[in-house]
């Protein structure tokens, strides 16, 4: 086994996905098959190879420090599932 049921539970918590027991079981089996297929990556010697995180060597892409946005709070909150005036509303946060 490349991945255990417990690891699946842990990863599901990190990803904030509620999985019922049947989904957990199916997820474990599928990810195990995929990770087993991916084992071939381990066979490749890449010790002398630099990782590629970005496709292109790009010059600095930056903007000047200017306020360019006109606030349009109503339009931006229009898709909110729950709001309170101009605030977004969420279940109580416990610190």
């Amino acid at each position: 086994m490349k991945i255990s049921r417990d690891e699946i539970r842990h990863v599901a918590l990190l990803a904030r996905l509620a999985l019922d027991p049947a989904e957990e079981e199916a997820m474990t089996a599928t990810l195990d098959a995929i990770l087993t297929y991916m084992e071939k990556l381990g066979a490749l010697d890449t010790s002398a190879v630099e990782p590629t995180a970005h496709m292109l060597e790009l010059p600095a892409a930056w903007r000047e420090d200017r306020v360019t946005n006109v606030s349009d709070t109503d339009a931006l909150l229009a898709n909110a599932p729950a709001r309170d005036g101009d605030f977004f509303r969420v279940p109580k946060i416990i610190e």
Partner: protein
Amino acid sequence: MTAAFDQPTITDAARRLRAGELSATELTRAALARAAARAADLHAFITVAEEAALRDAAASDARLRAGKPAGALEGIPIAIKDVIATAGIRTTAGSRILADFVPPYDATVTARLRAAGAVIVGKTNCDEFAMGSSNENSAFGPARNPWDVTRVPGGSSGGSAVAVAASLALGSLGTDTGGSIRLPASYCGVVGMKPTYGRVSRYGVIAYASSLDQVGPFARDVTDCALLLGVLAGHDARDSTSVERAVPDYGDALAGGAKGLRIAIPGEYFVEGMEPDVERAVQSAVETLGGLGAQIGSVSLPHTEYAVSAYYVVATAEASSNLARYDGVRYGSRVDGDGTLLEMYRRTRAAGFGDEVKRRIMLGTYALSAGYYDAYYLKAQRVRTLILNDFARVFQDADVIVTPTAPTTAFRLGEKVADPLQMYLSDIFTISVNLAGLPAISLPCGIDAAGLPIGLQIIGPPFGEELVLRAARAYEAATDWHTRRPPAPGGSR
């Protein structure tokens, strides 16, 4: 209605619109009527923007009558994949979690289409968050292949390919992260192109895997494809990964012909388990190109077999982060659960995402998590370097690489749903191109024994779109596969 009126190319329609032989409103009404007629069997659209389209068409007509067309696409009905933001038009990404999301902004490519005068007829069906190879992962139900409605159109940009193949629009936009334009183009018998990473802005394109995603066109033929690419391409100050590099006139590239082109054929792309008809069609296409004066040579891309693994690590890792924003706070659907914040997150995301999206979020989260980062994510990035180097080596002595787009033609709905890994392997010929950020096109090069289209893939070096289009047009001009149309509605084979 004549066939020519019904199914013009963009180039053809643009000429007739300017000559006053045709109005944008007529053209748009015809497209909308076909979309409505084929809604049930093809399901190419998630949202048809009829009202807005007719309004845009009327505005186009006014500009055309005044002799002041806005741009190259004035009055042309275009469909847009539903992962691309359209201000005021619902944009779902094929997901329940965004089922009611109406963005207050346009993607840069949407704005570019509008500025060129295009009429946006609607938002096309796709795999949820562009994750899939068959369009069966759409939360709104799959689109179907117009050549055989029992088969998939390919994914993830299935609806966009179907819309062009069945003339529900004259052109369309898709996104390609691992083959999501080229595979459906191949399965649906149309032309689809993925530009070089950085050539087209990603701003407003709902991200799947940010280092791989790229927007590109679907069209009836290579000429239309070049025209659309010219509208889409160019630097965008809102996308830091878009490149400041002049956009050539892609139309000019078309006339170059195949003579003198150095074409490389990689052995690794002719594998066991390939459909014999596909192999024959591609070999025949290579011979055609050779006959037109291209120099054909065999090459090796030795790390090809690692591409699918590397891709599914890199893409899912990025996706796991990109999809964290769907948390029920600022937009999208939400399920409150037991009233705690944690449960709100878990229930919202469990209810909002489909199985494949969950699978990829899980895989990507795992690949980035403590203890696995080096073995998976970093390893995959190193393999990515090897794949990049493979291509760079080949392009030292070749102008383009020619391969099949996919090992088979369109498979049946449901055939691979139960086996995600088999589904992933549909993309084995397209995925390396994304890992290396290269431009590539798929164009029709045959019909198999089942009557399904076969796709030819032409890959270019970075920013070698002109070479790709030149080779593609040379092949297309010498053959008539691009003129084949799917059977009439209701047909299946």
